């Protein structure tokens, strides 16, 4: 099933949780809603699920207005951040719940329910835990029960709210891989909310980056990493160095850096900033132009990369990441002066008045 969200607005008291949000999810897509806490991503997911009402805007499922449908007919499976398992029911009964509450005419017979629940428990690799209670399970197991429960009603859309947020790093990795395999297997249209950019980039086919109730960018993981639409996206998707300055006459003057900037050929100067990721900077010992001098203030070996912190002449820090081999050629130590040159700078003009 495809989802189309048009012009959603939602306000909680004085807080604008969603401000004119529109996007769509194609059949079989695995989409991530990525953003910091308070960016409105969970509210958006809850509105799609029908757990919250929008002040304005519509949610269309396959072109039909979803608001008119009872949750039962929406065909939505929802996985809550803290699992929300029924704690007085066994794992088996938790998964069976969605089938048991169906109207008598649509309810499968007991043997069919058993077969279905056992099949789902097999799918999430928990068939041996059917008679346990949620309190006896680990976090990862609970999360998988929650997923099996959501899938039991044969949803056409799967919505997951911070599905791995409450789990430790290793379990999270494992579940992530497992969820991706599952998605490849059953190909269910899925939307998940996360504040972890790594999770979003690794898992999703498409990422919607949100901030303060608005969509900052909607694109493939590659898009948002390589072609961030706004400084916010750039900042949110990892560490970045900022060079402040201005643009004028087709050139960006960013401190000691001068770059071509054909997007602004006008004589009127505008405030701007250039952004480079730590791995997009090179270090050398000679001034070959297009860079700046800095003093090494910290060197850390971090696995496959070496992390430098340099101070420019304003004593503001610049982060640089070099590969082991590059580092072997430089071998700069703390206190030394080195020449830093960005291979790539993304320039964003500030909005007038902003």
């Amino acid at each position, binding site marked *: 099933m495809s989802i189309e969200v048009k012009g959603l607005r939602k306000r909680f008291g004085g807080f604008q949780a969603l401000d004119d949000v529109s996007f769509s999810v194609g059949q079989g897509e695995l989409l991530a809603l990525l953003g910091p806490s308070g960016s409105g991503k969970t509210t958006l997911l809850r509105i799609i*699920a*029908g*757990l919250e009402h929008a002040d304005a805007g519509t949610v269309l499922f396959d072109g039909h207005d979803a608001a008119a449908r*009872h*949750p*039962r007919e929406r065909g*939505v*499976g*929802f996985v*809550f951040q*803290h699992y*929300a*398992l*029924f*704690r*007085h*029911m066994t794992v088996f009964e938790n998964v069976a*719940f*969605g089938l048991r*509450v*169906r109207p008598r005419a649509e309810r499968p017979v007991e043997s069919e329910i058993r077969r279905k629940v056992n099949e789902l428990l097999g799918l999430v690799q928990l068939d041996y835990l059917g008679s346990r*209670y*949620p*309190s*006896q399970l680990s976090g990862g197991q609970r999360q998988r029960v929650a997923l099996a*429960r*959501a899938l*039991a*009603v044969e949803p056409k859309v799967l919505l997951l709210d911070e599905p791995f947020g409450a789990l430790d790093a290793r379990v999270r990795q494992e579940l992530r891989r497992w969820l991706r395999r599952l998605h490849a297997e059953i190909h269910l249209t899925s939307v998940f909310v996360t504040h972890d950019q790594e999770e979003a980039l690794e898992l999703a086919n498409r990422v919607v980056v949100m901030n303060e109730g608005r969509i900052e960018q909607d694109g493939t993981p590659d898009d948002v990493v390589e072609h961030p639409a706004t400084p916010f996206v750039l900042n949110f998707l990892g560490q970045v160095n900022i060079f402040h300055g201005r643009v004028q006459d087709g050139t960006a003057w960013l401190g000691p850096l001068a770059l071509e900037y054909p997007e602004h050929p006008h004589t009127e100067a505008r405030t701007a900033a250039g952004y480079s990721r730590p791995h997009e900077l090179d270090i050398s010992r000679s001034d070959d132009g297009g860079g700046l001098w800095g003093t090494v203030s910290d060197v850390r070996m971090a696995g496959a990369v070496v992390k430098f912190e340099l101070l420019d002449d304003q004593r503001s820090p610049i982060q640089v990441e070099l590969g082991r081999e590059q580092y072997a050629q430089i071998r700069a130590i703390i206190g030394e002066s080195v020449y830093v040159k960005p291979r790539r700078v993304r320039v964003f003009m500030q909005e007038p008045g902003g």
Partner: protein
Amino acid sequence: MSVHSTDRRPSQPVRHLSEPPVVRWGLTAVALAFLALFLLLPLVTVFLEAFGHGVRAYLAAVAEPEALAALRLTLLAAAIAVPANLVFGVCAGWAITKFEFPGRNVLTTLIDLPFAVSPVIAGMVFVLLFGRQGFLGPWAAEHGVRIVFAVPGIVLATIFVSFPFVAREIIPVMEAAGTQEEEAARVLGAGGFQTFFRVTLPNIKWGLLYGGILSNARAMGEFGAVSVVSGKIRGLTNTLPLHVEILYNEYAFQAAFAVASLLTFLALVTLVVKTVVERRLGVASEETRPEAAVAGTG
């Protein structure tokens, strides 16, 4: 902590793990003495006095028509008040914990009102409200309903004094449980009734049980409020506590204690019912209790 330090110094005796025996025994003795003085002694006295003139006199006092009428009335009032309070308590708890609405805090405070107000005043309020000169009195008289100095007044007063118990017990439980399980049920396609009976009710059943028991104890034992609205018409509007007082004032001590022992029996029956229900619910869902306890602290 303590285990850690004993590991390091195995030769030292584990002194700080528990209080010295003197303190332990002392505290236990104080608790037991207190219980004996304030609980056991009065209880024994009731039964000693009740049976002081022999079993026959006891049975005669208990089987007296007026005593039986009082027993019936007390049971009737409790039988109406407790279910009413259970329904009200769940409604109030639901409203307060699952929704945000203006006046929510006022409602929370109002629920405690019967605890704060003296029962006698509560009784007076009903007399003023439904009495002949009262605000609703003429309307009630027109419709041929007697409220004050009749059974309805007694029931109303009983409900008033016993209603906070259920709400008080289940509001913290509901608050700790949150709304996520209900939301999960809704997305899975459950209707309102299904959600309530399959998800909410099992989560609050212990609170309901304890609230119901406290509410019942208060309903059967209430004296002040009921004594104002009852008018103490023997055989008609006397509850057991009122009947005890009347007998006592007439120097019929043995009869007074015999009737009082009936109230004590009712209390014991309540405790037995509680234990039985607890055991049954406990067998049905061994797992929910520790979880609920944990949720309660969080």
